[in-house]
């Protein structure tokens, strides 16, 4: 079993080294773990810093958004024969120990797509983030008829077949809803695993701005009407 961890990154030079170092080197049931960073046209030293950590870096020459970077990572992971693909945000908001938790259901053949949900278990999340995440879930449910307690989570695990079937086209944040919609369309087994989100001052500043919610919502709506 080969696990490829895809880390999409945009202007994360300050934290990416720490995040990459924290990734697990060994997981029971996994023979090999490889990590690939997708530098999404960062204006800072993200790619350089990541390469310094002895990690493979793919660079987008232009910034194309989180969805596009994730897709590039998944395409690459498939090309090097990944059996399981995990997406992991570069801003340090995910707990690296959760990777094992989200990979487990795939190893045990219980699921094709696993979402690391920050909302399944009540935990400390800033109230504004809590509301916006639920609005995201509601939009996904209303437009695509697919429900998840955390549609916007960046921590996911794909089985080989899920990675082959799920075909998302959104370049920006809407892609997370699209993944869930695609999983539903192909009747994949989706499982949610409660994970721990780390909201640091940095990840809050670096992550999605609250004001970004409206354009994301609008584009999701347009995609639906298109």
């Amino acid at each position: 079993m080969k696990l490829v961890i895809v880390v999409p990154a945009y202007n994360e030079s300050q934290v990416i080294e720490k995040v990459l170092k924290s990734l697990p080197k060994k997981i029971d049931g996994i023979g090999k773990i490889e990590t690939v960073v997708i530098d999404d046209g960062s204006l800072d030293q993200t790619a350089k810093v990541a390469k310094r950590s002895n990690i493979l870096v793919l660079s987008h020459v232009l910034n194309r958004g989180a969805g596009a970077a994730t897709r590039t990572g998944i395409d690459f992971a498939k090309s090097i024969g990944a059996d399981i693909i995990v997406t992991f945000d570069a801003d340090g908001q995910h707990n690296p120990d959760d990777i094992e938790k989200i990979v487990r259901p795939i190893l045990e053949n219980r699921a094709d797509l696993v979402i690391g949900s920050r909302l399944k278990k009540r935990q400390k999340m800033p109230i504004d983030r809590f509301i916006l995440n639920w609005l995201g879930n509601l939009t996904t449910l209303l437009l695509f008829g697919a429900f998840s307690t955390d549609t916007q989570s960046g921590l996911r695990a794909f089985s080989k077949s899920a990675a082959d079937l799920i075909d998302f086209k959104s370049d920006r944040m809407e892609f997370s809803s699209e993944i869930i919609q695609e999983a539903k369309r192909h009747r994949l087994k989706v499982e949610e695993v409660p994970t721990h989100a780390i909201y640091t001052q940095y990840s809050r500043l670096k992550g999605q701005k609250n004001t970004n919610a409206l354009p994301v919502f609008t584009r999701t709506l347009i995609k639906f009407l298109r």
Partner: protein
Amino acid sequence: MLTAIQIFLLALVLFFISRVVLRAREKVIPAKTAVFWSIIWLSALIGILLPKTTTQLAGIFGVGRGVDIIVYISLVLLFYLVFRVYVMIEDLRRDITSLVRQIALQNASMPPKSTAGKKSGR
């Protein structure tokens, strides 16, 4: 006798027609597009030179005045064109992304500890 507004609109429309012809000759716009715009501007020409035709058209559709029917048709057309342009931009965005992705995949630089079986870059 032409009124001032007729002369003004006539000049404007003739100018637009000349643009369509020139761009079509330069092959900047495809023939189909040129035909579409020619039809638009030629009907505008008829409307300007023979204002009665628009009144007749309005009568057929049960709209009060000739000017009204023109405004309605133009609005619908404009919205449709805006939609087309929007779709076009989305397609372009997607093309750019796949281009950027291909470049990234082709330039995949292996870290020193690279193993066999991986896609090699460059």
